[in-house]
């Protein structure tokens, strides 16, 4: 080794320790943690370290096309956008240690649209545009992140959640997968006049559980399954030479082959059927069975729905409920989003409620008065998690106040029985007595109308609280026409009552998302809840309240928060990008909450919505913070809209 080499080597090792230190720093933050060490080392060697004093602008729209890429080594950077009519600029984002900017402007070779200002004394690593471009072309994880930003991280989180849950279950595909990707073989089908025997032989030879009956043009007419065969054999007259069309189930359920596995799961659960035809342009292209969806699972979606709907007693129903918990685990394993999981849980809860009502009527005797079963709150929004309590009511028709009183007397004992039976099934009795057995919530359609009118007309704090519960409203059992009519009256009245809207807006601003100016998260300082935040009230609350207000004010009748946000997006009430960000934020917080509940369930601890942010990994923390910030932005837009 000559002198120069020796010199270079000795110097390099020591300097490498500085470089190594910075690489180590970068490796604790995404996307750098996914990048190859050689690319990171190259990044650091290209980098400069810069200091920005608190308040100093770093990037400004008037600077022209962005020339540098910044990674915050220490400190906090704020994005500011000047809003007309506001005396202070709107903080559109905050960028903390380990995060980087500006991606869109660099990729678009343009100036930044947002003023980036140091919110604290901050150090940033910077690389020149050319180095950024080189890195972009060399490192796949970096490119992915640069192109898709935080969304690419969300995918990572979902993969993590999926992996975590699948470790116990072994799932191999996502619920978002297209059905035609899941269904391998071509469908087995026959014409209507095929004799039963030869159709069954065809099923046997292909070793499949169903055969679709189609016409000459392959349009499905009916389906025949092993279940039907069992029933047929059990019946007295078995003539296997009869045409299959005489024993098939007509009008089989159908989905396009582009539908997702989740769509199929929902359809199967809702109608408790195990086979769905894939039909494109009126022609049969495949059959998806429950086995295709959940082949490796102990928990069986359709079977569970069926058993719930046919359970012979409340005790049996209660016992079946634990299967729903396993189901949530397996859905997480299949990469279901929190929105999908809450919808499935709600579907099962609906089955349970319906069966409880049927069993209660059977036991108690039919009161002879038709009624609808209403639910409110999270059940009304179809956003139930495993941690659920009862918010329900009854609606019936009555021609006069006297008749209403009379019918109420008949229905109340049944309502009480239903409430108690639901409690037995794990739906906690409502502490605020928002239950059908409460005479104030067992009302005729006219009485409900009057009750809602009162809530809207006089905006006391108590009424506002009620509006938050009652206006997330859905019919689970019984006729829904009367209820729909009442609710469209509610929408009309709220739409024209700006005072009420404003009060609701004020209410929606009550719970602030738990992020502070300087620290990551704002947590309880002392007591049993020290170092934790309430992920439901503080995190989900702003989205739920905001979506409700905007939906009610704009005549949108759906009650599900995600659907409300989607419709607000479609109608142009919310900016599409904003709405998407709210939806992602809401879903992520819900996912974190659900994972926490699953964890508590496994450890046999009581369900709680208190979360210690330090228990999350770096990636989850960052996205949670971003999600809370979206909640804050939603509140900010409400304040602006309603001049608060």
């Amino acid at each position, binding site marked *: 080794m000559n002198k120069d080499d020796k010199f270079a080597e000795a110097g390099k090792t*020591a300097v490498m*320790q500085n470089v190594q*230190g910075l690489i180590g720093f970068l490796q604790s933050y995404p996307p750098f943690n996914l990048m190859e060490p050689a690319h990171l080392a190259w990044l650091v*060697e290209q*980098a400069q370290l810069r200091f920005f004093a608190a308040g100093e602008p770093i990037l400004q729209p008037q600077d022209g096309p962005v020339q540098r890429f910044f990674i915050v080594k220490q400190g906090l950077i704020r994005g500011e956008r000047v809003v007309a009519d506001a005396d202070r600029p709107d903080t559109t984002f905050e960028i903390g240690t380990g995060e980087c900017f500006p991606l869109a402007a660099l990729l678009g070779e343009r100036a930044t649209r947002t003023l980036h200002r140091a919110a604290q004394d901050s150090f940033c690593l910077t690389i020149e545009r050319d180095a950024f471009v080189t890195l972009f072309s060399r490192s796949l994880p970096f490119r992915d992140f640069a192109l898709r930003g935080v969304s690419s991280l969300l995918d990572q989180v979902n993969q993590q959640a999926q992996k975590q849950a699948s470790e116990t279950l072994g799932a191999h595909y996502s619920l978002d997968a297209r059905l035609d990707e899941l269904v391998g073989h071509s469908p087995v089908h026959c014409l209507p006049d095929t004799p039963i025997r030869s159709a069954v032989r065809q099923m046997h030879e292909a070793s499949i559980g169903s055969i679709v009956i189609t016409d000459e043009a392959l349009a499905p007419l009916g389906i025949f399954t092993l279940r039907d065969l069992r029933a047929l054999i059990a019946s007295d007259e078995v003539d296997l030479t009869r045409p299959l069309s005489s024993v098939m189930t007509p009008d089989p359920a159908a989905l396009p082959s582009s539908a997702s596995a989740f769509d199929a799961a929902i359809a199967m659960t809702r109608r408790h059927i195990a086979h769905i035809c894939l039909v494109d342009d009126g022609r049969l292209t495949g059959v998806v069975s429950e086995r295709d969806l959940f082949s490796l699972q102990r928990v069986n979606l359709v079977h569970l729905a069926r058993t719930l709907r046919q359970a012979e007693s409340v005790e049996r129903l209660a016992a079946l409920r634990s299967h729903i918990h396993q189901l949530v685990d397996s859905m997480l394993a299949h990469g279901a989003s929190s929105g999908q999981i809450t919808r499935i849980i709600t579907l099962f809860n609906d089955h349970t409620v319906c069966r409880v009502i049927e069993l209660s009527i059977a036991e108690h005797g039919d009161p002879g008065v038709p009624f609808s079963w209403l639910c409110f709150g999270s059940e009304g929004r179809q956003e139930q998690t495993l941690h659920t309590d009862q918010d329900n009511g009854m609606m019936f028709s009555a021609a006069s106040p006297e008749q209403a009183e009379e019918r109420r007397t008949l229905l109340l004992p049944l309502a009480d029985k239903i409430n108690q039976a639901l409690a037995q099934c794990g739906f906690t009795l409502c502490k605020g007595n928002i239950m059908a057995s409460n005479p104030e919530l067992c009302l005729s359609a006219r009485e409900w109308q009057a009750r809602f009118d009162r809530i809207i007309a006089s905006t006391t704090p108590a009424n506002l609280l009620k509006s938050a519960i009652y206006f997330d409203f859905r019919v689970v059992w019984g006729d829904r026409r009367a209820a729909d009519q009442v609710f469209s009256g509610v929408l009309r009245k709220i739409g024209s009552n700006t005072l009420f809207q404003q009060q609701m807006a004020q209410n929606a601003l009550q719970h602030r998302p738990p992020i502070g100016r300087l620290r990551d998260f704002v947590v309880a300082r002392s007591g049993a809840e020290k170092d934790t935040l309430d992920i439901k009230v503080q995190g989900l609350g702003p989205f739920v309240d905001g979506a409700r207000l905007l939906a009610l004010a704009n005549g949108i009748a759906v009650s599900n928060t995600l659907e409300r946000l989607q419709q607000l997006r479609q109608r142009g009430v919310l900016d599409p990008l904003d709405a998407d960000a709210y939806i992602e934020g809401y879903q992520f917080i819900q996912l974190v909450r659900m994972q926490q509940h699953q964890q508590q369930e496994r450890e046999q601890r009581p369900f709680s919505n208190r979360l210690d942010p330090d228990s999350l990994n770096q990636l989850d923390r960052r996205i949670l913070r971003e999600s809370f910030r979206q909640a804050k932005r939603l509140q900010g837009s409400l304040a602006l809209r309603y001049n608060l």
Partner: protein
Amino acid sequence: MNPLSWLGTRRQAMDSEQQARLARLPTPQALDDTLLERCRLVVVDLETSGLNVNRDRILSVGAVVVENGSIDLGSQYECTLFQENHRVTESVLIHGIAPSEVARGVAPADALLDFMAFADNGVFVAFHAAFDQRMLQRGLRQTLNTRLRHVFLDVAELAPMLYPEVTGRKTLDDWQDYFQLRNSQRHHAAADALATAEILLILLSRARAQGIATLAELNSRLRHWRRLRQARIGSL
């Protein structure tokens, strides 16, 4: 073993190539009207065999350059010098450079020539600069037989001058704490230089905010500050 063995007596004559390199070194920057962000600030940290500027030897040189208000992480400098007869002293406990590492180092003449070429015409900056200045002076005189003409700025002076509201901070660690700078590899020449350079970035930002734009202005503020401090100490 004669502790002065490194002085004079065993100095090796430079070869012609080394002579040529020495001659090529540029004239250093003076404390003139050059804008602060226009000049090359070479933040230097020397690890030595001890704290005696007359007797101890330079073991390694670490340097980081601040230019245009930023630290270029791609051009850091560190070199462990090859010194004969290096013995373990209490200093080893501080800087952690093992005798074996010193033995693997580069010959002092080459190392210092290389370092001076790296420093170019820059202004040296160090924490407690007087020590680094005198060590380097002696090293250059004895090894290269040349005079160190570069000027030094002392972060241990600049920091209290620009942050008069901060009291009781004396060491590099103190100021690192104050500015909440994390540095895992302290007492390694390159790491110390980087830590000092980070503080320098903060100080340059503060100086700019106080209307100090040029080297000359900074120097005049420093002289004023030293007189004030002397007066204050005198009046006590």
